[in-house]
């Protein structure tokens, strides 16, 4: 079960919560499948409350911060492979070159990725996935969709999880117990990193996370360039 959990999706669930967004800014009806989505949300929430969150809290409690940072860096370095491939697919060649330099530096001179020496060196971390690539190519996000285990998504981003899974170095590990341990550790690491962000979630958790997710995805697809409608308002 943990194996199925995508750190990216989980990350999006609660990282997105840190962006405070007013619900009435979301255009038209992005969530015609709300009934199904709410059911899936309840399922995920239940799973999180009774399994994942306690495990993440235990992990944070017993693990020194230095080790937690190392674990995070290790998985971030693996994630850079996905980012590199998607930057290439979006023809962001400079960013792709930077990702290559990051991965090489952190893998070979940063103890296999445990130490992120590329960021202080001036090679900034990027975050790209195939959902963003499709968005960059002009594919609309489609309806909001909550996936079991994976969390908030859209039709486009949900389908995009499949090609991204092929870019996950953990999936290439042949030794099954090692691979599953890595999946488990990554889920714990991701969830533990989001514990603090939870406090920001207010009101209807479903609506808050949905709107935050959709806006954050749009922000990421456009690389931070969002049409600001503030001035267009009638005041």
């Amino acid at each position, binding site marked *: 079960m943990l194996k199925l959990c995508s750190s990216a999706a989980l990350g999006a669930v609660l990282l997105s919560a840190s962006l405070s967004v007013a619900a009435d800014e979301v255009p038209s009806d992005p969530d015609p499948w709300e009934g199904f989505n709410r059911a899936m949300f309840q399922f995920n929430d239940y799973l999180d409350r009774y399994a994942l969150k306690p495990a993440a809290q235990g992990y944070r409690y017993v693990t020194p911060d230095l080790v937690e940072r190392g674990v995070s860096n290790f998985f971030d370095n693996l994630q850079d492979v996905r980012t590199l491939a998607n930057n290439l697919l979006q023809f962001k060649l*400079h960013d792709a*070159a*930077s990702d*290559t*330099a990051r991965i*090489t*530096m952190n893998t*070979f*001179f940063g103890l296999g990725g445990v130490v992120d020496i590329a960021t202080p*060196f*001036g*090679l900034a971390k990027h975050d790209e996935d195939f959902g963003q690539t499709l968005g960059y190519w002009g594919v609309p996000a489609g309806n909001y969709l909550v996936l079991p285990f994976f969390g908030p998504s859209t039709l486009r981003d949900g389908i995009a999880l499949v090609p991204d899974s092929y870019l996950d170095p953990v999936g290439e590990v042949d030794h099954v117990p090692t691979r599953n341990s890595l999946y488990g550790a990554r889920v714990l690491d991701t969830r533990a990193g989001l514990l603090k962000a939870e406090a920001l979630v207010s009101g209807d958790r479903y609506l808050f996370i949905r709107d935050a997710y959709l806006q954050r995805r749009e922000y990421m697809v456009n690389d931070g360039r969002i049409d600001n409608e503030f001035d267009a308002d009638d005041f």
Partner: protein
Amino acid sequence: MKKSLIALAVAGAMTAPIVAQADATLYGNVEVELIMGDDTGVDLTAATDADAGYTGASDADLQVDDTILGVKGSSELENLSGVEAFYQLEVEFASNKNFDSSTDTGEVATRKALVGLDGGFGTLIFGRQNILAESVERMDKYAESFSTNQYFAFNDRVGNAASYVTPNFGGFEAYGQIVVDGEGDEDRDDVDGGIVGFNYSLGGFDLAAAYSEMDQMNADTMEVYGVGLGWAIAGLQLDATYEATEDNETGEESDMWGLGAAYALGDATIGATYMDFEYDDSGVESDEWGVYASYALGRKASVKAQYTSADVDGNSLENDDFDKFVLGYNVSF
């Protein structure tokens, strides 16, 4: 007693700037590499296994790649207005033998020992020095790749040599280099080798061409032709090299070509090269591709990671893989 010590200390402090005024620069370089690969010493251009030194072994090696120490300097010539005399001495220490001994008993090799004159007329260089034709070998990026020492036709340096380089005319300079060696070959020619060529740079574009004809141990000569092209645009450096050789004793010819690309990201550089080598007579062909990333940790220190993979056709080595992975840390001074 105390006073004399202080006086000595003051004198010592005073002499330091005087030494600096003599304009001698002590410089050097030490690079340590961890090499993991197949048969790091194999000659991929050889016609037979025996010639290639092939053992089929794969081994890791933590070695000192460059241990270089040099002194160089220049001084104005008071009696020749506008002319500067310069000199350079550069030696390399063998540092990879006798790992279980307190010292390395390897030899000290002289890389350069030269004197020269520099003025409005151009530059004259005498002694053991760089081969000027090396400017065509633009993709010499891999210190430990198979190809660097095997595919390229020009040696890095030449001894017993005298060179003349013209002044730079709007990016253009030409050169001639002759070798005058009184021993070591069978003929009694006074001039045992010659190299001519030119370099041209305009904007980000570079062109270099060179021709050399050198005596070998026998009376016949080896001829080498080379052309190098480079183009730099917005952090991207593209390079190409073509070289051909002809052995006037055996009649054997070889040629190689290579392409390289490097992209700079601030203090990091990533790059890739491809090289192709072919012996026309024996039919031995080998090619190599490689990727690398290097990181300048400061003005004088850098690390690098590089991977090269070579493939041989036309001899019995063709069923073997030749891969090499290198991590390096370099400090110069």
